[in-house]
């Protein structure tokens, strides 16, 4: 049972655990920015203003139609060739995840908005409520309640997918676990440990989602 030799990696655990902050810093910021970007894209898609719709649709098509790891590599290795200056791994990772998840989230939100009864919009219009306030106070809050499970799914995917920042050398949970393995020629234990951390992060997100869902069910 040499491959399950956990005791030998104990001294390295703090090193792996530090990766949690690196991962969280990328994931949380990308989630927030991706969410905002997704709302903006969704509003473009339902705007009935043709150029905005085309831009948002084309954008979604491209970012859903190509691998995330490719987008990350293009931003980190490719863009500096055009810009003439290097991009740090951390902002490159946040940019890639934000742009990618924005595409997925915009589709979720668009579906959520379309599912709201047209009467809600008519009632708001009849009361003289301006479009922006109607969206913010009436339509989006109802849409979010319905799409929360789908949004949580997207957040969970993003948390796990963040492990690909390893390829641009970010010292996240994944890369640290891999390094510990390489140093000690004992991969199994540190990788399992990394898996446990990801699993716990996802469980935390799941519970958070259930909590929010419970609060939003008050009006049912």
């Amino acid at each position, binding site marked *: 049972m040499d491959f399950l030799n956990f005791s030998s990696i104990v001294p390295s655990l703090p090193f792996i655990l530090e990766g949690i902050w690196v991962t969280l810093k990328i994931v949380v910021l990308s989630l927030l920015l991706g969410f905002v970007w997704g709302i903006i894209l969704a509003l473009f898609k339902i705007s009935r203003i043709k150029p905005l719709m085309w831009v948002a649709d084309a954008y979604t098509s491209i970012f859903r139609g190509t691998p995330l790891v490719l987008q990350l590599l293009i931003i980190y290795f490719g863009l500096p060739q055009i810009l003439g200056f290097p991009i740090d791994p951390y902002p490159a990772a946040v940019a890639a995840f934000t742009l990618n998840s924005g595409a997925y989230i915009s589709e979720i939100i668009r579906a959520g908005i379309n599912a709201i*009864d047209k009467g*809600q919009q008519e009632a708001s*219009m*009849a*009361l003289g*409520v301006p479009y922006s306030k109607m969206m913010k106070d009436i339509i989006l809050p*109802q849409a979010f309640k319905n799409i929360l499970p789908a949004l949580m799914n997207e957040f969970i995917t993003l948390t796990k997918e963040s492990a690909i920042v390893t390829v641009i050398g970010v010292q996240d949970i994944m890369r640290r676990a891999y390094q510990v393995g390489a140093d000690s020629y004992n991969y199994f234990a540190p990788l399992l440990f990394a898996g446990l951390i990801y699993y716990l992060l996802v469980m935390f997100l799941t519970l958070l989602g259930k909590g929010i869902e419970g609060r939003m069910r008050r*009006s*049912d």
Partner: protein
Amino acid sequence: MIKVDNLHKTYGNLKVLKGISTSIASGEVIAIIGPSGSGKSTFLRCLNLLEKPTEGKIYINDVDITNPKTDIAKVRQNVGMVFQHFHLFPHKSVLDNITYAPITVKGLSKQEAEKNGKELLQKVGLLEKASEYPNRLSGGQKQRVAIARALAMNPDVMLFDEPTSALDPEMVKEVLEVMKDLAQTGMTMAIVTHEMGFAKEVADRVLFLDGGLLVEDAPPSEFFTAPKTKRAQEFLEKML
């Protein structure tokens, strides 16, 4: 107060309104009746531009609301609307449903809006439901809240689009009572309805629409006892 001039509405090839002209005086209660597909709901929904007229003009308080330069949101603040399916905001409490527009659109303070809101709830007999969510209410209660919500903006005129058609029979009366009370306060009202008894009792004038045209315009005493057109006679025979 409202003047409609040669109103047309077309959806693609379908002509729903084919030139309607009429006017509604301040304090008048108008019942709009007619067979389904006659264009009566479309006509009503044109009055606050939920439907955009294809042709013709509509004046409310001498303002041409079909003019693209008119601030329609401003006009709508003075035109209350009650829908067949209520369209209350399900994520807001009954009181918040009523105070939302006065606070957001008119800039009333929360206190002031809630004071007015509670008075209106008292009027429609639902003060004890102020903190409930709409899903906990019966259809009749929902529609009374919807009426209170529209009244909270202090409108000059109230539009009712088949307000009792989605209700269970035993709840129709409570909503009609509220509307009757409202009519007695001198509110200008335009009501699309199938409640002939109510139209007869409360309306000052009946507009009978058929095939997108205004076929008859008469006081209920005349219209219900001696309709002039064959179309109206047939319709009334089926209804009564």
